[in-house]
């Protein structure tokens, strides 16, 4: 394969777009600095965008060995990249912020309602038990209730 024929800005831009999308969920979400606002990912998307623009120009240049194929491929790759970027914006800013207000949730200072639910072995466990069963031999000082979506 002739390296000169390869539209490297296009493909680098595309790979960087994928990296910009995935890196938030695997890396940047772990640090509050890059998690609270995804600026690091947006920077990566901008760089990817510049590369894709270069790639697109190159794809439409008149000196391409396969002009038609080159135009089609660079167009498709660019559209896919834009779609990945749109997906990112949607997942972070639309899906991520669509949580209910939960105004009726227990407030600080309130006593929470007791409940009893099955654990992973199917045994019923009550909040009261969780608050009283010793941890490493001494009475617990408290319980951290973590509600999560589940994995369905």
């Amino acid at each position: 394969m002739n390296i000169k024929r390869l539209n490297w800005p296009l493909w680098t831009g595309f790979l960087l777009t994928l990296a910009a999308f995935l890196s938030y969920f695997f890396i940047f979400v772990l640090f509050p600095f890059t998690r609270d606002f995804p600026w690091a990912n947006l920077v990566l998307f901008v760089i990817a965008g510049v590369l894709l623009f270069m790639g697109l120009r190159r794809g439409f240049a008149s000196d391409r060995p396969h002009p038609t194929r080159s135009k089609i491929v660079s167009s498709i790759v660019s559209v896919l990249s834009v779609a990945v970027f749109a997906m990112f914006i949607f997942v972070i800013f639309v899906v991520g912020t669509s949580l209910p207000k939960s105004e009726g949730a227990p407030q600080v200072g309130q006593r929470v309602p007791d409940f009893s639910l099955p654990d992973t072995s199917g045994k019923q466990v009550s909040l009261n038990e969780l608050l009283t069963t010793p941890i490493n031999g001494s009475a617990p000082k408290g319980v951290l209730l973590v509600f999560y979506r589940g994995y369905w």
Partner: protein
Amino acid sequence: MRSIERSLSKFNEIGIRPVAISVDTSEDSRKLAQSQGYTFPILSDHSAEVIRRYDLAHKGAGINGEDIARPAEFLIDATGRVKWINLTENYWIRATPEQVLEVAKLLK
């Protein structure tokens, strides 16, 4: 969940028991705990009854349109009173174990 497991010994040291709750069945939670090595209690609120009672239901957000829990964390003291709450407005922004440990140290 993974960060809770990683900080579990720190939680236990200061007498805090982390407990996770979702609409997953006991069986699904057991598989999850096994595959991920989670050793803290995971409770199954399959009908979302407790989740609704705590006003934490995200209506129709499950994969088949069922109600599921929105992410939320509560620190409850030994008398059953709420000491600290985290109701995030952004799914991706959760409380870190460090944050909770900081508050938990104040419990008597």
